[in-house]
């Protein structure tokens, strides 16, 4: 069996003195992660272009639910978005998006819909919204954001890594809950099988190309709300083409932090993210550590 590659990149100065991401360091970390996934001698740009067809539109689905306290911050997403736009040959081909303009603005994003520059807006932006007919797939019945469904050809989940009281862990897969109109309906049974089955919908599975997990600041306990006493300055990014393997490594990081802080494991708390094993059963990626090759580097 070919193992799934997951890159972990650490930088001790990823967060500045104000605990905000340094965009230059962030970009170095992302490029390094992509190079690790690509294998020498390919560049990060080569790797990205191998994933995305020329002339395509790319969505960067971020998570801004916790606003400035614990979200994909603009210092991170805009740096990555601008670089991706340059790599694709046109900034406006990249859309940074989440559920609402309000959440984006409160997280510090400056909205833009101009096709000449990096586009940043929410599903509730005028003229966008949700599709009118629900997608029915296994246990999922949801309206999809028109950004995910119609405006982008490819998708990157640029997620935040957090402990989650119900799901166990929220990272790259669960980030797509923000692409549908009714995520509140999918939190029963530790979000299992819903997280996996949502990702398995063709509108996500066929467009998703890469997971980038922002683990600069990790909420390892009592998430997904922000509690500074249980948030660790980890200063890492986790990248993979395998969306399940990426989340499994994120989960492992959370467990390591919990162990270090003397907290019980998620399994001991009865809330391990079982949806990852469901995702593996659906053929979405590797959930077992022995099937994952971790490539770790510091920049």
């Amino acid at each position: 069996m070919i193992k799934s590659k997951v890159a972990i990149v650490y930088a001790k100065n990823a967060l500045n003195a104000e605990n905000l991401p340094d965009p230059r360091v962030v970009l170095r970390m992302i490029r390094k992660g992509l190079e690790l996934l690509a294998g020498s001698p390919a560049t990060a740009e080569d790797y990205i272009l191998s994933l995305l067809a020329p002339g395509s539109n790319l969505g960067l689905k971020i998570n801004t639910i916790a606003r400035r306290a614990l979200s994909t911050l603009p210092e991170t997403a805009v740096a990555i978005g601008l670089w991706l736009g340059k790599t694709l040959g046109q900034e406006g081909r990249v859309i940074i998006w989440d559920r609402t303009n309000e959440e984006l603005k409160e997280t510090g994003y400056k909205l833009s819909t101009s096709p000449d520059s990096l586009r940043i807006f929410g599903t509730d932006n005028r003229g966008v919204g949700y599709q009118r007919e629900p997608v029915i797939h296994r246990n999922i019945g949801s309206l999809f954001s028109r950004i995910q469904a119609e405006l982008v050809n490819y998708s990157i989940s640029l997620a935040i890594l957090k402990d989650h009281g119900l799901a166990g862990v929220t990272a790259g897969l669960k980030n797509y809950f923000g692409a549908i109109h009714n995520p509140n309906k999918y939190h029963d049974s530790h979000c299992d099988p819903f997280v996996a089955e949502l990702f398995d919908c063709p509108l996500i599975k066929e467009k998703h190309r890469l997971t980038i997990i922002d683990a600069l600041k990790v909420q390892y306990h009592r998430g997904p709300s922000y509690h500074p006493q249980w948030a660790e300055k980890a200063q890492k990014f986790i990248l993979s083409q395998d969306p399940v393997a990426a989340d499994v490594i994120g989960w492992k990081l959370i467990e390591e932090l919990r162990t270090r802080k003397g907290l019980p494991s998620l399994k001991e708390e009865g809330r391990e993210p079982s949806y990852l094993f469901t995702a593996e059963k659906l053929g979405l990626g590797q959930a077992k550590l022995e099937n994952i090759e971790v490539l770790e580097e510091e920049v």
Partner: protein
Amino acid sequence: MGSEINRRDFLKCSLLGSSLLLTGKTLVSNWPLTSSPSLSEGADLSWVEARYYEKLPDREIKCLLCPRFCQLGDKERGYCGVRENKGGRYYTLVYGKVASLNVDPIEKKPFFHFLPGSPAFSLATAGCNLSCRFCQNWEISQMRPEQVRNINLPPEAVVTTAENQGCPVIAYTYSEPVIFYEYMYDTSLIARRKGLKNVVVSAGYINPQPLADLLKVVEAVKIDLKAFNQDFYHQYVRGELQPVLETLKQIARSPVWLEIVYLVIPTLNDHPEEIRKMCRWLKTEIGPDYPLHFSRFHPMYLIKNLPPTPVSTLEKLRQIALEEGLHYVYVGNVPGHPGENTYCPNCGKLIIERYGYAINKIEISKGKCRYCGQKIAGVWS
């Protein structure tokens, strides 16, 4: 707020649209209040503190309104999508935020034994605490308030407008009134003071204490019993059967009038033996006098692969219920069917003749059958 209609516009529209109002159609024909599933940017939410919740450490809360008991951290929403924890306080976001508004005949709810022929001023907000895959109103019930068009209509304005439209009844309906509990409760109090009646159309997924409080301010409740089978509730409703049965018993013990609707979905909840079991339970636990409506299913929302319920199935289930001793059993969503009519349980004569939502004749006087004097259960005046 480009897509929101304010109260002044609404009241203006309601005056202009009064002829439409009494036909049971949407208030203003070119005003799609039953909303499109696009968000309205920066939607105006109500942020009125919820009444049934418990504060927990670290700004968490536990909702006590329904059997889900959602436990939520800061900025998280409940399963219903219309209640949010903000900084350790829990809020309803839909107080006065009406997403659907019509004047319907009360028979449409359906209430067949409660002020027949009355126009009911009917309203709903977005949201629901269940997820029925066959929901007939999913375009509001399965939405968050930001995802539908809302009008601001405070409780006083609901009552005033209902009065102006000549409606003796206000119906909390369409989505799930439990999730707009505070709004419904406050409106009901004002309506009652003005002599209007309040009726609730619900799936009955509510905790005993809020239900007990609600039963003090409303006059009738219709409960959608989705099946008599926990597996069905789990798979197709995403809820539990037992709390709904407890709700039925609690209402039956109160002075509030009760009717029950059972939407019959081919192959999923139409097994005769299960229906027989349900009817026995109803007769034993709540008595034979509360009407039971077997309604016809039409393919909708996430169940589009099944045909409409055969009329013969509805007739068969109605027959079972009558055999089991229930006094008032109806066939719903089949206009012109004799099972829409009310028959005296004593002499068997036709005492209310209906066609769809229209009443053709009533042979009840002072709550009794005109032919034999049998008391007919219900609220007739």
